[in-house]
C-alpha cells in the first residue's frame, strides 16, 4: 500500500492545478489543496486508494464552491470608483498593445493585471505564486520587449 507521502507526491500537481483553476489564484489554491490533503491525512486508513485522486478533487471543488460563496462576487464584476484613475482596456478591439506574439503567457498576465487591473506587484505575486522580484522581472522584460518592437517598427 502507498504511504501518505507517496500519495501526496503523486497527486499534488493535479490537485493543485484543479484548485488553482477553481479559485483563479495560486495563494487560495494552496490553502484549499492543503485542506484537501489534510482531510485525506485524517482519513487515510479508511480511504480506498482507487478513489484517488477523484476524492481529493471532489474536496477541492467543494472547497472552491464554498470559497466563492463567501466572496462578494458582485463586487468583483464592477470596478470601484478609484479604478477611473487607472488605465483601461484599449477602446478598439484587437489593439491590445500587450498581445505581442513574442511575449509568453506569464508576461501578458503580469502586464494586464498590473497596467489594466491596477494590481500591485505583490498582489500579482500572490495570485500567480511568484515573488515580487519575479513579477518585477517579468514586467521589465515585457515592457523592454514592447518598447524595442515599437522602435523597430517606427525606425
Amino acid at each position, binding site marked *: 500500500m502507498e504511504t501518505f507521502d507517496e500519495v501526496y507526491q503523486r497527486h499534488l*500537481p493535479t490537485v493543485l492545478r484543479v484548485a488553482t483553476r477553481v*479559485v483563479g489564484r495560486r495563494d487560495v489554491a494552496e*490553502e484549499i489543496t492543503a*485542506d484537501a490533503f489534510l482531510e485525506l491525512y*485524517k482519513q487515510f486508513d479508511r480511504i480506498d486508494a482507487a478513489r484517488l485522486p477523484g476524492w481529493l478533487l471532489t474536496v477541492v471543488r467543494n472547497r472552491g464552491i464554498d470559497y466563492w460563496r463567501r466572496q462578494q462576487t458582485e463586487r*468583483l464584476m464592477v470596478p470601484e470608483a*478609484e479604478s477611473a484613475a487607472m488605465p483601461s*482596456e484599449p477602446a478598439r478591439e484587437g489593439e491590445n498593445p500587450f498581445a505581442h506574439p513574442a511575449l509568453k503567457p506569464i508576461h501578458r498576465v503580469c502586464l494586464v493585471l498590473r497596467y489594466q487591473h491596477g494590481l*500591485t506587484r505583490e*498582489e500579482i505575486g500572490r495570485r500567480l505564486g511568484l515573488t515580487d522580484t519575479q513579477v518585477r522581472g517579468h514586467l521589465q522584460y515585457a515592457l523592454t520587449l514592447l518598447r524595442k518592437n515599437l522602435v523597430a517598427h517606427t525606425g
Partner: protein
Amino acid sequence: MMRETKRTPAFDADEIDALRDIGWQPAADGSVCPDSSLLLAAEDGVLDDVIADRVRSHVQTCATCQQLSRDLAAVFAEDPAGDAVARIRARVTAAPSPRPGRLYLWLGGLAAAAAMAWFLFVPRGSTPPVPETQLARATPVAIPTVFVVDRPIIPPGDVDLTVRGDVSKRVSLEDQIAAALDRADKGDLAGAILELEQVAKRNGTSRIAALALGAVQLRAGRNAEAVETFDRAQGLTPNPAVTDEFDWFYSIALVRTANKDRARTLLDGVCRRGGARSASACAGLAELNR
C-alpha cells in the same frame, strides 16, 4: 474579497515612461473587466449561475479577457514551484501547538484549518475523520510556535457606537465584535467570520472590525483572506489604541503567506514600542531572523 485592494496604482517613473512609449493611455471610464480570478471559475461551474453568466457574456465581447483567460490557463497548468510544494506539505503535516491552559481553543492556523475542514469541507458521504491522537505521526511544526493566534485585545474605550434603528437597541461596535469573538472561541469559526464580515462591512472605516475579522480568519487558516483583510484596513485612519494589536496579527498573516520581509518591519515596530505584544513580537522577530 474585493477586486484586490483598490488603491490608485502607483507606477514607477520608468514604468510610466515605458507605458507612454508603447502608447498605453489611461482612459476616463476605467476598466469594466471582471476580476481575473473569475475567468476560469466561470468556465468550471463553481460560481453562482448569475455571476458566471455575466462573466461569460463579458468575455465573449472582450478580446483582452479572452486572451487573459487563455494565458491564465497556461500559467496555472504549469507545475507548482518547489516552495509551493513545501508550503502545502508543511500545512498538511504541522501539528497543533496549543498554549498551555488553552488547549484546543487557540490552535495555530494549521490545526484550525483542520477544524474548518471538519466543519465545512468533509466531502459528501464520507466517514468522520479519525481521532486527533492518530495525528501523532505528523512531522514538526513549520510555522514558528511563537506566532500563536489568540484572541485580539479590543480596547473598551475609543470605540465608535454603531447606531441601528431604535436607540434602546444600540449595540456598540465592540460588543458586536466581542460576541463574534465569543462565537469563535466556542469553535464556530465559520459563523464568527460571517458575522465579522458583516460588522466590517457596516463599519468600513473601522480598523478594529478589520482586526477582529483578520484574526479569526487566521485562526481558521484562511491566511490569504486574512492578508487581504489587513491590506485593505492598512489604508484606514490609524487607531492608536490598536496599533500594536493590528500590526501583530498582520505580521502573523504575512509570515504564514511567506511575506517575511514585510512581517519583519511590522514586528520590529511592535517589539520596540514595548506594548502587550512586544515580547511575542521580539521573539517572533528572532525566529524569523534565525
